[in-house]
């Protein structure tokens, strides 16, 4: 029986800068010389208040844009209008095209038919989820406990959550975040599931993280954020399953820290 919970490992990782929930930020102005490791002339690197930030840049965020090097990430914050990047600019950076993105969070579903893993706060990684070839389920691997592919649920590991929503303080003492669009699988999906697992697919922590060795080559170790029990088996036949994100409030938000 699953238990809705924030993963214990996730709580520790938050103190280790192990997750970036920031939404994509596109400054109106930006610049950078070809071959340089800096982006300059940014309109700003952060806005709002501590309780209700409106946008922000932090080290490790992915950077894209015309003239930005492929696969670039933010290095340091150099000033209120400039940052360094870990990959040289591939050309002259075009103003207004540079985007800074937080981590990619994903959601997968656990099958209802005799899952062997334990789905609660002790789950640390989804590992290599795949109903047919994912390996033995454990606290570091959902493995074969993921639902089989069907219809719009057509990739092992589930789907990306779109889009990150700016974390903020709600009603004084509780910080929350969520995503903006309800995850949904259609195209004639036939699904039978008991719970969902949200995880971070972006490599951000070095080895050892969460009890398994991070892949230094850059592939994801898929660290668990939370487990969400559906209260029983939920099934759809050749149809559409949509998970409705709760209101982003201090008492209901999908992720909140009191």
């Amino acid at each position, binding site marked *: 029986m699953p238990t809705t919970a924030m993963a214990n490992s996730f709580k520790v990782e938050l103190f280790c800068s192990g997750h970036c929930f920031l939404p994509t930020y596109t400054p109106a102005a930006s610049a950078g010389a070809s071959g340089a490791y800096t982006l300059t002339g940014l309109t700003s690197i952060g806005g709002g208040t501590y309780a209700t930030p409106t946008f922000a840049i932090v080290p490790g965020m992915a950077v894209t844009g015309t003239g930005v090097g492929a696969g670039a990430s933010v290095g340091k914050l150099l000033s209120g209008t400039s940052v360094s990047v870990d990959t040289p600019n591939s050309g002259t950076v075009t103003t207004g095209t540079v985007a800074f993105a937080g981590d990619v969070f994903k959601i997968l579903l656990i099958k209802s038919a005799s899952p062997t893993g334990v789905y609660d706060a002790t789950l640390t990684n989804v590992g290599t989820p795949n109903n047919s070839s994912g390996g033995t389920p454990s606290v570091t691997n959902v493995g074969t406990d993921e639902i089989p592919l069907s219809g719009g649920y057509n990739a092992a590991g589930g789907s990306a959550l779109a889009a990150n929503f700016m974390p903020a303080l709600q009603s004084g003492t509780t910080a929350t975040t969520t995503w*903006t669009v309800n995850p949904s699988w259609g195209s004639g999906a036939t699904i039978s599931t008991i719970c969902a697992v949200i995880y971070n697919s*972006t490599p951000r922590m070095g080895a050892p993280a969460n009890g398994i060795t991070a892949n230094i080559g850059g592939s994801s170790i898929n660290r668990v954020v939370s487990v969400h029990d559906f209260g029983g088996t939920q099934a759809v036949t050749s149809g559409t399953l949509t998970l409705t994100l709760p209101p982003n409030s201090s008492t209901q938000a999908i992720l909140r820290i009191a």
Partner: protein
Amino acid sequence: MQFGLLITDHGKHSDEKLAIATAAEIIQIAAGASSKQAIDARKLENDIIDVLTEHHAKVSKDEVDKLDADPAGQLATKLDPMPHMTDIVDRVLEVAKKSPFKDWFERDDVKQLIRDKVASWTATNIYIHRDWHAGGKTGHGTNLKDVPGYRSDARHVKFWYERSNHGMHGGHGSGLPPGFVENGLGITQEQRS
């Protein structure tokens, strides 16, 4: 930390179901509500459902028509609810102001809540149509037919699934399907300064 669930067998969610789900997030009956308040709230919710059913039907028709006319082009465009948001909040408010709760709906934060929820479900509606189209079916609700000339290995279909399943690891957008909402409402939270 609990998800709600919306399930439809043998097809897409109908416009009515999407409207009911949207309205349920706008009208929430408090535990301390009196019996009369609860009844009045339920009546208002039904009136809002009527307005939102019309809204979702319009969104669905627009999206399906565009997908049928130009599948590759439409799957690559920004998934943006904004073009559908011009008057829907006013139409919901118009109904609400005829109810006993009209003072509540004068509040700016309540208006913003309506805007956010309708926009979010509008985006979900658009996403569902694109997801089904990428899977080879077009149409409304459970009345579906095959997409003419559909190929699962078509470049735009593969592109859609790559983005929606894996996000955009290159950076622009966090887990955003193709061209996913990049401006506009608070629901996107992407800021331009």
